[in-house]
């Protein structure tokens, strides 16, 4: 039996803890400064909108941790001394470990502008950010959110739910078009506008003005937006500042090998804070999403309990919801036309629904994206893995249909449409 210390209780750290417990009798300590209990970060927006209370975002009841002999410590880790195999807490306490797992998560990227410290200017990542946002948005009539990613649109939705006028400022010329293909991206643009959001494309905030509180921002085109709240959601970076002076090698994230081990033996890193030295084919070195955090947690647990295990995330998948528009993606989907790839695209004329099937030069399926339609993970993966043809896909659309029963079917219309 050895002692495993996990820093960070997000999806990556907690998945690791649960699987280590399942497969061993190691002593497990999970440390987090943010909250004692694990909660779903992706659900913070629903607390603000009143859909849920904080307790609803906790996937396990509080007795779960004791029962499974997983110790939770709410504390801030200041230093890792890998030569002595222990970590230091802000309180001065020293916690020794046999195996250390860094699941540090990320932190909001800062904007290099004066005025980011004014009252009413903030990002949204942590539980504390959420409570701050609650205070910062009290009585607010106009808000600006800068950043064209997932947190930005969530923040816009949150503010909008309180009747606050929101301007969403996006650097790109179409929402999230470094990920979404043009048609899907434009559908989201239209959707954002239809929800009553003022969408400013190809713009960014160049100046933040206010005395102690934010009063207005100035955009690239010199236009002035009055606002009492500014949300900065221009991306996230690995949360690794306190490792700067440690032995652990970092670049943009903590560098890990194929087994998620850092340069130092017995120290692993998982989740958002990781930078893969040799990413699997078709995958990026940093993928700060829920699912990779979870798969890394499973992998590192196997590593610790059963010996070397490679991180094999399988075929990429992700999903999101933009206001009321659901999005799912599987496999490789280039955001702009790319040599060697072709795509079949169908868009409903009557409602916000679309399906895209990406094909390679062999005319076999390599990626699938849907908007406003739910599709089956298992089947999509199977099509991609076994390289199904477009004809096969179009004649088997019913297999991927995951929409609720009795919904208007898309199969026939898609199969008989003229590819775009």
């Amino acid at each position, binding site marked *: 039996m050895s002692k495993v210390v996990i820093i960070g209780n997000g999806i990556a750290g907690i998945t690791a803890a649960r699987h280590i417990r399942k497969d061993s009798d190691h002593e497990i300590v999970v440390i987090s400064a943010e909250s004692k209990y694990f909660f*779903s970060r992706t659900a913070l927006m629903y607390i603000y909108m009143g859909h849920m209370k904080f307790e609803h975002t906790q996937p396990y009841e509080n007795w779960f941790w004791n029962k499974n002999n997983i110790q939770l410590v709410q504390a801030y880790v200041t230093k890792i001394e890998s030569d002595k195999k222990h970590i230091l807490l802000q309180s001065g306490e020293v916690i020794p470990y046999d195996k250390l797992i860094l699941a540090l998560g990320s932190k909001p990227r800062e904007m290099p502008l004066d005025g980011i410290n004014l009252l009413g200017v903030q990002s949204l990542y942590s539980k504390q950010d959420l409570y701050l946002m609650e205070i910062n948005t009290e009585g607010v009539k106009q808000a600006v959110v800068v950043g064209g990613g997932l947190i930005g649109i969530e923040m816009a939705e949150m503010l909008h739910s309180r009747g606050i006028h929101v301007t969403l400022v996006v650097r790109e010329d179409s929402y999230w078009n470094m990920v979404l293909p043009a048609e899907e991206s434009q559908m989201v643009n239209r959707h954002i506008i239809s929800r009553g959001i003022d969408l400013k494309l190809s713009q960014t905030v160049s100046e933040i003005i206010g005395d102690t509180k934010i009063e207005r921002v100035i955009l690239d085109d010199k236009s002035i937006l009055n606002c009492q709240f500014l949300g900065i959601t221009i991306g996230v970076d690995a949360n690794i500042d306190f490792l700067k002076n440690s032995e652990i090698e970092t670049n943009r994230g903590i560098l890990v090998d194929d087994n998620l081990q850092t340069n130092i033996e017995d120290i692993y890193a998982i989740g958002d804070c990781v930078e893969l030295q040799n990413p699997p084919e078709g995958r990026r070195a940093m993928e700060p999403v829920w699912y990779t955090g979870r798969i890394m947690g499973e992998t590192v647990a196997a590593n610790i309990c059963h010996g070397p295990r490679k991180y094999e995330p399988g075929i990429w998948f992700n999903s999101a919801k933009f206001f009321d528009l659901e999005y799912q993606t599987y496999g490789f989907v280039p955001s702009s036309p790319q040599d060697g790839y072709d795509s079949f695209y169908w868009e409903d004329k009557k409602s916000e629904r679309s399906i895209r099937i990406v094909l390679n030069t062999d005319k076999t399926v390599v990626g699938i994206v849907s908007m406003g339609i739910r599709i089956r993970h298992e089947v999509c993966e199977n099509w991609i893995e076994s390289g199904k043809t477009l004809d096969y896909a179009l004649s088997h659309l019913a297999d991927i249909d995951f929409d609720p029963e009795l919904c208007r079917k898309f199969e026939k219309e898609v199969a008989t449409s003229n590819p775009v």
Partner: protein
Amino acid sequence: MQKIYTYLIIAGFFVFLAIPFSSFHVLTPNTVHEVIEGSERASLLDNELRSIMGGEIGNLPLQRQLNQAFEVANGSILAKYSLTDEQIGNVAGLMVTNRLNKSSIDSLFSGPEAEFQKSAFSNYGNWLYGKAYATEEASLQVLETIRENINNYEIIPKLGFDRYQKKNIKYGLAKASLTGPSITHPWLTLFLSFGLIIIGTLGLSFAQLIEPAGIKNNDVFKHPATSRKWLGGIIGVFLIGFYIILYFYPEFMISWVAIVDPISYLLKGSGAGHFFLYGFIYTVSVLVMGVRMIIKYRHNRYQIIRTISVMFFQTVLAFLLPEILVRLNQPYFDFKNIWPLDYDFFFDFELNKLIASGQIGIFMLVWGITLALIGVPLFTYFYGKRWYCSWVCGCGGLAETLGDPFRQLSDKSLKAWKFEQGSIYTVLVFAVVMTIGVLYTYFTGASQVLGINTFSMREVYGAVIGAGFAGVIGTGFYPFMGNRVWCRFGCPLAGYMGIIQRIKSRFRITTNGGQCISCGNCSTYCEMGIDVRAYAQKGENIVRASCVGCGVCAAVCPRGVLKLENGPSEDRFEANGFIK
């Protein structure tokens, strides 16, 4: 505009609450004689009520006066018919010296009611014949018991007023003597109470159409009605009070019953009773809040069609058809109410009623038995219990419409699940045992089974489970414990179907690969308190006895993870392998 609708609802509600206070009763000798059977008894009560005849009197004072009158009337009836101390003394004296027989006792009774007393004593005291007692004291004790029995089981029920008659007379007199807005301006009163509430609620619902379609649960946990705050408390207390009065003290709600008289006359040509009022409120709630539900989920056809289904079954099968049947001189029958939820289906008076009604009665009997024993398991195998619970059932219909705003208040803890398993199967066993007992009595005539009286068993079930659990707690607790308290913890039919759904059914909620982000929307909005997320985040399907298949977990999921579907029953429990 939204404010105006809210004010309309509040105004209608206040009118409704004010009606009992602006209604009075004017009693006349005529009403007393119309309501009470037997002119001697009617005259007795009539005499006692002289002081309030012709004057306006409120409901509470009227009930008080009636209680007093009953007491006095029963007293004078007892004084007239009951055995006197002297008569008892005589019999006791006889018992010490002689063995009793009928003629020796009969000779002791004289006076105007001697014939009555003779026959009563021979009914209740014939077991004394041939007996002798050593002391007068011992025989007096025995005779005192006999006198009590004659008083309680012979004189009061047949000549005076027992518990049931008092209840009926109080209700009947209050109804017949009522005067007030609902009598003088029936349609206006109906409009100003129910009408305003309906218009206001529909207005608020239609106002949502200006917002784009989609899941809108904004502020559910901040609104005072839907988050266990003050307004929810008021609604809950009102509902609980309403159910207690409805089931146990209906004579106090006469002025409310009279509001729906116009509707009752239209439908069936006679005045309303309190269960007609209840049926009316129930149906209107399902319809009006059903419209709200459809508007709220207008982007989801499963929800729309399901809601139309419960609205149809409540309105046509539960409310209109039984009344029409009665009007056609056929037995009152709700074709979609199924044993053991319909716990009195096998009661003797129900069976006798159906058997006495000729072919249609026999059809109803066969229909009910077939549905319970063959239909339920078959449909539940193919579609899960949702075919009934969230598509057909009346309790489910109310929960899915009126109750929808409260669905998030169900308890998701493991403890609650354990409690649920204990309570729902206890009720199921109780219902089955009670029914077996009642049928045993029906066929053999013996009222005792293993030392338990089947009549008191069914009486306890009716009061505690039928009225208390299903009604008072089931609906009254919406604002405290969510909209499915009865369905989750009590309904024996749900328990029965749950066993089938869990063991052998094609229904499941499929989890879509590894897409779950553990956000908790599904669990939060599960009215049955199922921790849906616990399965979804492991890549497992949800196969739970309690799931009523409302589909809201799938609707609120932001990542398209959940889908209700029917498929091969064998592989339902296997994890999909995307999450280890």
